[in-house]
Every structure is written in structure tokens, then in C-alpha cells.
């Protein structure tokens, strides 16, 4: 099975004019990309800005993407270049945030201030911590075979076939175990998102 088959099917949809498919790609890779960019910058908010720029560059360049490499490899290169350029330009001219919103406050500068505030508010940090603790607690509560399957997949990055070999079971069983593990964690996670702190869903 091709390692990039699902990404490629989403990419093809974007290339035929379906913007919703690109949203799915962003949701899938946003954490990976922010983590990648944080090798170059320390501030999470700045890393998100760079990741955002990288995603938008990727969207605009997507008509030229032929699928010769994996989508994430291509996106990775765009993000690295964007991060390097951002660091260089930041070193040349330090970022100064205009806090006077009454004068010529564009939506972009407004968003920047909003994000800076979000990342630094105790509420934002609490939500992140709550998500983390919820997921960790849900994983601890999983049966051993489900826990092993999801950890081998997400932490070690093994394919279903490799996990099947490691766990000595059919590939179909691996698929089922990983799905059931995700379902159990997601059930707990949904309660967090939908229980008052679910701002991620409301901010659109």
C-alpha cells in the first residue's frame, strides 16, 4: 500500500477545486508542522504563524504538486524554507506588534494580537493541559493490546503490517485495534471539547 494514498486523494480533491479537502490536510498536519517549525523559533504563537504561512504557500503551490514525493515531504520542505526566511527577516528587523488597534488596525494585526493573547492566557494553557491529561488518562485505561497498537502507530510510526508482525496478528486486527483505541480516547476528548472549553469548535 502506498504510504501517501490518503493524502494524495485529498490533494487531488483540492486540485479539482475542493477547498474542504485542504482543511482536512491542515487538521492532520498542523501539530507536526508546528513542532517542526519550533526547531527554529521558541514562541508557539510565532511557530503557528509560520506554519500558517507555510500552509497557505502550499495551498497556492498545490496545482504544481504532481505527487512525485509524499505530500508531507513536500509540505515539510515548504515549512522549513518559510521558517528559515522568517528567522532571517526577524533577525534583520525585530517584530514590533502594534498595540494601537484604534489606528489602522487591519484584520491581520488584530488576529496577531488575539493569538498572542490566547497563547498566553491561563485559559488557553489549561485547555491544552486538560487535553493532554485526558488523552494520557484515556490511553492508560485502554486494554493492553489496544494501547500497544496505538502507541506503536503514533509514537513509533510503524505501519499496520509492521505492527501486525510485532504483535503477531493479522493486519485487519491491527486496523481494528487502532480504531477502537482512537474511539475510546476520542470519546473522552470530545467531552473536553464540547464541555465548555471547546473553543476550537467555536472559533470558526
Amino acid at each position, binding site marked *: 500500500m*502506498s504510504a501517501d494514498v*490518503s493524502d494524495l*486523494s485529498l490533494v487531488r480533491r483540492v486540485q479539482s*477545486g475542493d477547498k474542504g479537502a485542504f*482543511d482536512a490536510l491542515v487538521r492532520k498536519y498542523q501539530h507536526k508542522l508546528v513542532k517542526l517549525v519550533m526547531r527554529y523559533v521558541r514562541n508557539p504563537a510565532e511557530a503557528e504563524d509560520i506554519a500558517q504561512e507555510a500552509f497557505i504557500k502550499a*495551498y*497556492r503551490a498545490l496545482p504544481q504538486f504532481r505527487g512525485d514525493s509524499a505530500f508531507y515531504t513536500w509540505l515539510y520542505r515548504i515549512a522549513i524554507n518559510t521558517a528559515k526566511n522568517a528567522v532571517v527577516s526577524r533577525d534583520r528587523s525585530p517584530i514590533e506588534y502594534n498595540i494601537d488597534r484604534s489606528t489602522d488596525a487591519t484584520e491581520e494585526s488584530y488576529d496577531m494580537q488575539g493569538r498572542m493573547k*490566547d497563547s498566553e492566557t491561563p485559559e488557553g494553557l489549561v485547555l491544552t493541559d486538560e487535553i493532554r491529561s485526558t488523552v494520557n488518562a484515556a490511553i492508560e485505561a485502554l486494554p493492553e493490546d489496544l494501547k500497544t497498537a496505538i502507541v506503536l502507530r*503514533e509514537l513509533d510510526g510503524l505501519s499496520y503490517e509492521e505492527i501486525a508482525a510485532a504483535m503477531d496478528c493479522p493486519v485487519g486486527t491491527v486496523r481494528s485495534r487502532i480504531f477502537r483505541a482512537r474511539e475510546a480516547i*476520542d470519546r473522552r476528548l470530545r467531552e473536553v471539547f464540547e464541555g465548555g472549553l471547546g473553543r476550537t469548535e467555536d472559533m470558526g
Partner: protein
Amino acid sequence: MNEELDSQLSAMFDNELPAAECELLARRLSRDEDLKARWGRYAAIGATIRAEGGVRLNSDLAIRVNRVITAEPAVVAEPVGARPQKATTPRWWTPVGGAALAASVAAAAILFLRYEAPSPGGQVAAQAPPATASQTLVARGVDTTQAAPDSYVVPKTLPRRSIVPSTQLANYVVAHSEFSSPVNRRNLLSAFMASESGTAGAPSGSDEPTEDVSDDAKSPH
């Protein structure tokens, strides 16, 4: 939401779903917000397991990107079938097509040469009208640019030079026709025409514009 669909979504997230199923699910995923939210939570679960330090799991990054993308025109890649393909023409057609092209060019060249060659009966008809006074002034090099309008003037098409028997020749042939044989008359006529052709391009009395004037007329003001 049914379990089979969720199972497919989980496998697709891991790039472990067969391509045909991916196509169908990608279509649904791009439109179904609930499915997309679940897909996003799968990503958050993975990030948490990997303990990706500094990553804000409640990030609105996807929302911000989506906001920018929504304001932009949709990107559409050029379909593969739209590219020019060499293999669409059968091979046997290549030499036949080349021969047909060469034949067409040859036929066009023959037609062009026949059109350009002066026909024997058309010589009198092609005779130019007598020059007017103003044209004569131009031909003599008189400056007429002051009278010319300040606009681009399309240069006059040069009349084709033709060899036309003069009145003298015609009178001579008529006067001696009854005393000469047809062969002699034809030879005499040819000799006169040859002598007349040597003076056909003389400037005096000609209606052809001089080179200098035609150049001025071509230059836009």
C-alpha cells in the same frame, strides 16, 4: 455515525486505506464537518502521544488557514489529459502528412507564379492612367509635405510595369500590314516591343512615385 465509516477514517488517517476507498472517503471528509472534527481530534491524539512540546492542542491554526483559503480562488491543477500528447497521431500518418504538406506547398507556389506572370492579353488592360499634375510634381522631387495631412498615409501600390506598343508602333503595323507577310509583321512587332520596353521606366511622364517620396509617406507623423 456508523462504525465502519469511523474505522475507514482511522485507517485513512494512517494512510492504510485502499486507494479506491480513499477516493470516496476524501470526498465525504471534505464536506462533512463532524467527520473533519473527528479527523482533527485524531491528529491531536497523535500529537499528545508523541508529547510534542510547545504544541497547542487547542490551536485555531486550521481555522485561520481555512479563513484565508476561503477568501482565495480555488486552485485547479491542469488535468493530465489536457496536456499535448504526441502519441495521439498514428505513426503511419506522419510520412503521409508530410507528403501532403509538401504537395500543398508546391501547388500554392505554382498558383502564385501563374498569378504573378503577365498574361499576353492583359497588357493593355494593365496600362496605368496618365499622371496628374500633382503626381508629376511629386515625381520631379517637389516638396509636397506641407500639403500632406499629419497622418499615416498608406503608400500607393506600385502599378505593374507592362510592355505596351506605342501609337507609333500601331500606326506602323497598320500602314505596312498589306505589304508584309504575317511572319514578318510578328517579327517587326516583337522588335518594336523590345525597343519600347527599354524606355518604359523613364521618370519623365511616369506615374510611379519616386523612392524618396514613398519613404516619407510611409513614416507616421
